[in-house]
Structures are given as structure tokens and as C-alpha cells.
């Protein structure tokens, strides 16, 4: 019995470690759009990036820091990769593993960007990185194109 509990406990502990690097869901914009409009009291930080985008990779520590610092608060970070879908296995997953990247990652696979960029934010030119911060309950929404600093992101987080 004790052995069984031990195995279950071990398995439960293993799940959160294995969950990110192993599974990066690919989705089109229709499916992704729900992430932009979660109607609860959590603050969502949604960052559009790609492994080949140098400024995106450079700003990654900002999201890693915020992830650690706010992990006990209602703050959720979602890293939306715009890498080519066929580079998920060869580029995105190795990047996540190598960095031990903790926040949730998904791959937005929807090449007709003209159809959805304005739905993310009309101010977005389409250049990455770009970040949306919102909290439905607080009626708070910010859009930031280009690299974001930890200070800027925390200002947004502390505004609501």
C-alpha cells in the first residue's frame, strides 16, 4: 500500500514537470481566441514570440521572472509561439526544454494573419514580440508592441 501511494505521489509530482515541454498544443486562431477573452478575475499575460526572434528570446527572462514572482497570485502567462508549425519538434520544444521554460506555451498555426491580427489588438502592426495584458473582472486591457521590460510589465500587473 505504501509503495502504491508512493508511486501515485511520484506520478502526480511528475505531471507538472512533464506537461510543458512535452505538449505544446497547435491551434488556429478560432481556437486560440478564447485565451484573449477569459471571463474571470485572473490577469492574463499573453506574449507573441518565436524562437528565431532575437528580441523575443531576449525578453523571455521577463516572463520567467514574473511567472516565479506571481505564481501564488492570479496571474497567468501564455507564450504564443509563431514559429513555423513544422518547427515545433525541431525548434520550439528543444527551446523549452533547454531553458526549462515554465509558463504555458502554445503554437498559433494560422498563416492568414491579416484575418486575426486586429482581433488581438487593432494597434498591432504584426511585428513581434508583442504582449497583451488583461483582466476581465477589472476591465483592464493593455497592448504592448516590441520588447517589454520587467518594470513595464509589473506596472501593468500592479494597475489592477
Amino acid at each position: 500500500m505504501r509503495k502504491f501511494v508512493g508511486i501515485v505521489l511520484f506520478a502526480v509530482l511528475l505531471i507538472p514537470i512533464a506537461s510543458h515541454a512535452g505538449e505544446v498544443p497547435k491551434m488556429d486562431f478560432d481556437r486560440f481566441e478564447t485565451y484573449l477573452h477569459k471571463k474571470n478575475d485572473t490577469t492574463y499575460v499573453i506574449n507573441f514570440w518565436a524562437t528565431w526572434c532575437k528580441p523575443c528570446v531576449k525578453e523571455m527572462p521577463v516572463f520567467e521572472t514574473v511567472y516565479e514572482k506571481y505564481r501564488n497570485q492570479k496571474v497567468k502567462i501564455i507564450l504564443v509561439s509563431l514559429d513555423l508549425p513544422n518547427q515545433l519538434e525541431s525548434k520550439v520544444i528543444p527551446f523549452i526544454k533547454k531553458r526549462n521554460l515554465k509558463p504555458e506555451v502554445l503554437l498559433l498555426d494560422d498563416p492568414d494573419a491579416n484575418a486575426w491580427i486586429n482581433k488581438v489588438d487593432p494597434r498591432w502592426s504584426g511585428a513581434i514580440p508583442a504582449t497583451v495584458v488583461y483582466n476581465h473582472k477589472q476591465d483592464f486591457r493593455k497592448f504592448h508592441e516590441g520588447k517589454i521590460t520587467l518594470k513595464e510589465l509589473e506596472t501593468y500587473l500592479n494597475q489592477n
Partner: protein
Amino acid sequence: MLIAVLIVAAFMANAGGGYDVGDKASDFKLKNIDGTWVSLSDYDDAKGFIVIFTCNHCPYSKAYEERIIDINNEYEDKGYPVIAINPNDPDLYPEDSFENMKKRAEEKGFTFPYLFDAKQEVYPKYGAKRTPHVFLLDKKQDGDLIVEYIGAIDDNYSDASKVEKTYVTDAVDALLKGKKPETTHTKAIGCTIKHK
């Protein structure tokens, strides 16, 4: 009072930086990969220009190289040549240096000028935000170059065979028929333009 309002309005129109459709585009003089200096006024016979801000390193730019060559091959003879401009600061991206531009153009067999915005003065004037970013200019009877389309090349960067909307060539085709392009603005994901 009226003048003040007009000045404010003119200022506000430019507040975001860059051109909108209908604006008059200015000429430039930039160095081409063959060492010559290129201005739009050099092209007496052109009916307009497909100005594309692009670069070497950006995967979205790379994905479009073949298509840009195809567009130039089809539309240069019809009076709308492609003018490619690299707006990036090579100190930040050595792959986008002038030497590497020459190499890339040779490897890929560019059939159009590939100019270097070394002082980074042209792209902000146009309002290019990413690579690739297209500004279609139409030469009017008085010689003015008017912006007729701003945006993406087509609706599928990742797979040329799955393209459904060929935004740029549709816009040029409209101009060739003496019409206004139906779609005048599109957006696309792209690499930010690198500046210090």
C-alpha cells in the same frame, strides 16, 4: 485659426509616423548591392513601384524571397518594378550587413535592386514596422508617387501553394486597369525592424 487647425491636423496625421494610403511618398537615394545609388526618379518609364522593406535574417522575409522574385519578374515589365530595402541596423543583426545583402542576393538570384537604408531614415518616413512590409506606389501624371496599398504580400507566408489572396499583385493588377485596389491595408506577422 483655420491655418492652426490645418497644421494640427497635418501634424496628427503624421503623429503615428509613416504614410497612409493616399499619401505622397518621397523619393530616396540608397546604395544598391551593386554599388550604385538608386532613386525612384531614376526610373523614367515606371508606372509605379512595389517597395518592399525586407532583410536577410528574418524567417518571414526568407519565406517570401522566391515570391518577391516572381512578382518582380512579372511586374517589372508591366511598369511596376520591385524595390527591396533592408532597413535593419547590422550592428544588431550582422546577418543584415551590406556584405551579407550582396551574398544573399547572389545566392537567391534577386532580379531587383536590394538597397540598404544605412542611415535608417527611409523606413520611418514610410512607416515600415516589420519585415517584409510592402508599400505600393503609383506614379501619377504629375509625377507624384501616391501610396495605394500598404501591407502583406499575400495571406500565407508559410506555404506559397496555399495562398488564396495575393494582396500585392491584386493591387497592382487593379492599378494596371486604371482602378483603385480593392484591399488597401493588410497586416502580417513579421520581424521588428532593428534599430538602436
